[in-house]
């Protein structure tokens, strides 16, 4: 029905403006990191009960990619930051 995400650029906005991509706790490996690292990056995902970092795109807002740390059980949002400050590449 409703919930809010506090976009660091736009303030609290309804979640309908956002698109979720998934796990933001994983960093893109270096090109030569080897098959295991790449396999893990492309295919392996944790599905935690509790705190979880996710990429959310403010698709219908500022169009910035954000890292939202939230609780998958209670939906409490702990923090929201711009993805560019996270260092997405290992």
């Amino acid at each position: 029905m409703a919930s809010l995400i506090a976009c660091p650029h736009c303030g609290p906005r309804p979640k309908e403006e956002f698109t979720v991509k998934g796990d933001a706790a994983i960093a893109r490996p270096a090109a030569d990191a080897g098959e295991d690292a790449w396999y893990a990056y492309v295919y392996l995902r944790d599905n935690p009960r509790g705190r979880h970092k996710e990429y959310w795109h403010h698709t219908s807002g500022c169009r910035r990619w954000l890292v939202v740390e939230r609780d998958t059980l209670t939906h409490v949002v702990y923090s929201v930051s711009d993805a560019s400050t996270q260092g997405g590449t290992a």
Partner: protein
Amino acid sequence: MSSFRLSKGGRIDRARPLDFTFDRKPMQGFVGDTLASALLANGRQLVGRSFKYHRPRGILTAGAAEPNALVTIGEGGRTEANTRATLVELYSGLKAKSQNRWPSVHFDLGAVNSLLSPFLGAGFYYKTFMWPAAFWEKVYEPIIRKAAGLGRATYEPDPDSYEKCWAHCELLVIGAGPAGLAAALTAGRAGARVILADEGFEPGGSLLTETAAIGEKAAADLLGETLAELASLPNVRIFSRTTVFGWYDGNVFGAVESVQKNTATIDPNRPVERLWRLAARHAILASGAEERPLVFGGNDLPGVMMAGAMRSYLNRQAIAPGKSTVIFTNDESGYRTATDLEAAGLEVAAIADSRAGAPSSWAGRAPVFPGALIQDAKGGKALTGVTMIKGGTPEAIEADALAMSGGWSPIIHLACHRGARPVWSDAKAAFLAPETQDGLTIAGSAAGVGALEACLADGAEKAGSVLRNLGFSNASPAFAPAPDTATVTKPLWYVRGAKAKAFVDHQNDVHLKDLGLAVSEGYGHVELTKRYTTNGMATDQGKLSNINAIGILAEARKVSPADVGTTTFRPFYTPLSFGALAGSSKGKHFQPVRKSPLHDWARKNGAVFVETGLWYRSSWFPKPGETTWRESVDREVLNVRKNAGICDVSTLGKIEIFGKDAAEFLNRVYCNAFLKLPVGKARYGLMLREDGMIYDDGTTSRLSDNHFFMTTTTAYAAGVMNHLEFCAQALWPELDVQFASSTDQWAQIAVAGPKSRTILQTLVDEDISDAAFPFLGARQVSLFGGKLTGRLFRISFSGELAYELAVPAGYGEAVADAIMQAGGPHGICPYGVEALGVMRIEKGHVTHSEINGTVTPADLGFAKMVSMAKPDFIGRAMLSRDGMVAQDRLSLVGVKPLDPVTTFRTGSHILSEAAAPSLENDQGYVTSSCYSPNLGSTIGLALVKHGPKRHGEQVTVWNDLKNEYTKAVLCSPVFFDPENEKLHG
């Protein structure tokens, strides 16, 4: 005709009568009536038939919990079934109908079910209709569905409009009874932004219905003063007729406001309902308490009413419930009703108080019987009397009304919507929700407080404390502390020895014995009992019945209600209309329609449109005399290949890319090289997913060193934009690159065919000869002698000499007209996406039919394009995995029937020539097919194991859905002009 209107009293306006009908019979009420009170005023107590046994039913409550008085309101597209008459504000012209009866509510053939009731007990569906299994769907279910159910929905569209809104506040107060008003006043005086929401058409809650005085002041006077002060505060908004139905993440509450449900003359410029999302820093839940029915024989007869509801009708709408009323209570509420009845000059025949130590403070005329129980209520379609058990002896009492009170259950639904569980309190004899949660505090009788003054004090005190926490340090309670003088007694869950059915869930016709049966048959767990008996599963969701059912289960299982626990509370608190949920998203507003800037041009040229996603694209352009789409498409294809054609390609995604690292960025998101793309050149690009599969394709042109122009496929335009932004922001924030979608800014026109250059040269100021503007040229051009600037690309999807011309969207139609005019002498024709599709299949060009998420660049013959020399690009790491380079991967080939008069369809599977259809023998499948007028045959593209090595092999194309087997041969996917002579012409 037992209930009637008193000649004076109440909050109704006798000077303003309202005409309405019930079951087509004209009736009259007054402003201030609900439909329920108006029916009672007209002596109508029988208002519906029950769900299963079709028993006559009357009005039981005066609020949202009403299980019986469900009526159908309105006509045609405005028909609203299962509306609670207790919540319907009476208006002039209201048309209401009773439900679940045939032929009439007075004489209902379905009542025969009552005679069958020994066979219709708990779990009867499961027991009776088990065998034979095939009968369930065809015989039993349709019969049950017809017999059961309440009102019928209409098939006509709803003519009214609805809207959705957001509102924000520091404090949301849910419920405008004593606790809610006190909380709102406290917060309003402190200067906080307050929203006070109440489901009724008049705020006040029990202050509207009680005759009690608060200090020296009558309840009604206190209410008037409080509302006047709230109205004077600009920071307080009062939402009447607004039900807060759910508590959601981020402390957002859902609410529905009735805007025009109280009138027969609907203003089409305003919504009838408004769906609110209320974002509150904190909320006070002051939703009150629900009076519990008592479970005794015949407790569903018309004339039996909740004691508080009877008081409400009497004090608010001046309704006398009958000539003689019996009170059955185990709580003070029964005495308050008796007092008010006697004050109105009505007779109270007896007060049966189930408590042995009944209070001695009663000063009224009616006799009190401590420790007495009403065992059975008697009557047919209306109450005529009761059997009272006093000291083990039955005594008959005549009465035409009965008020019952089994104590109070706090209304805690909203507080439990986000996972909190109710806890049984022996002290309060009630289930309570946690009083304080993050963002929500419960106050007043919803928190188990009993007395009216104590509710005022509780609301004020809690609001003060909440506001001080929110930083309103000046907040002080608007009402002084007051002790809770209400007493709590042990609940009476049911009366033993009743002769008639004793109903627990009135709406779903669940009676006492059903619950006993559920326990004895092993369904005693509260969640199992609910489903086995359907207790609490009706539209009222057990608002009246659940707590009694839990108490009865507890007694049957010899445990405490705490051990039984409750079922789960979920939104919505009360039923919500689909209209409110849909809001304005209906009809043409259900989803946007995207029209190309060339839409009107295409229409005036006779285009037949096809929906592709949100877009309307021109499919083909029939000429007079053409009777099939194929005739038009064949003509268009042949004409483009012979002369020239013009096609709208504006729907392709277009992205402007800027920045000093733009080239480096493109080099990383495409699998082929882009770093050294010269200014003035376009290049076909393949974008992969990180797993190595192709994501999308398109051309990207370099317009200047730091400015590129990318096109994507129509379907993936939005996805590619998101992907580019993700790569730039999350993966490589160090790169200097920015994007702007310009899909809607450009009208883009493909001009294809051997005469395309000649035609375009008449518009374009610059020299576009092959030498000056060779294949893959891309540049800004001047048009019509400098009147307009556009972009010209020499790219081709058809395989012909071809260009794409982009002009600012507003000029699209004029430029397309000019091209048509210039091309007239050269035989130009408009062509649509069907002809485009035929020509691309003839040339073996792929689309998302082939790029279906399972193909690598090598699978489509693009192996050489992939630049493994680049250190990194999206998808590079996974491209060399074993499975991605396996020899037997499905790869692109052409396929055509051996005999051109035979054909095959897209989606058909490829089998080796003599192989039987099986999973093991499956060689691949046809991804695209069409009739090629140039080859005079069906042709197709297919993904086939070892495809490129099998050109010339005879195969069978098999379609089991159509039982088709077509002999065919695999071939090169390029069917037409394999040397690309026309392209470079």
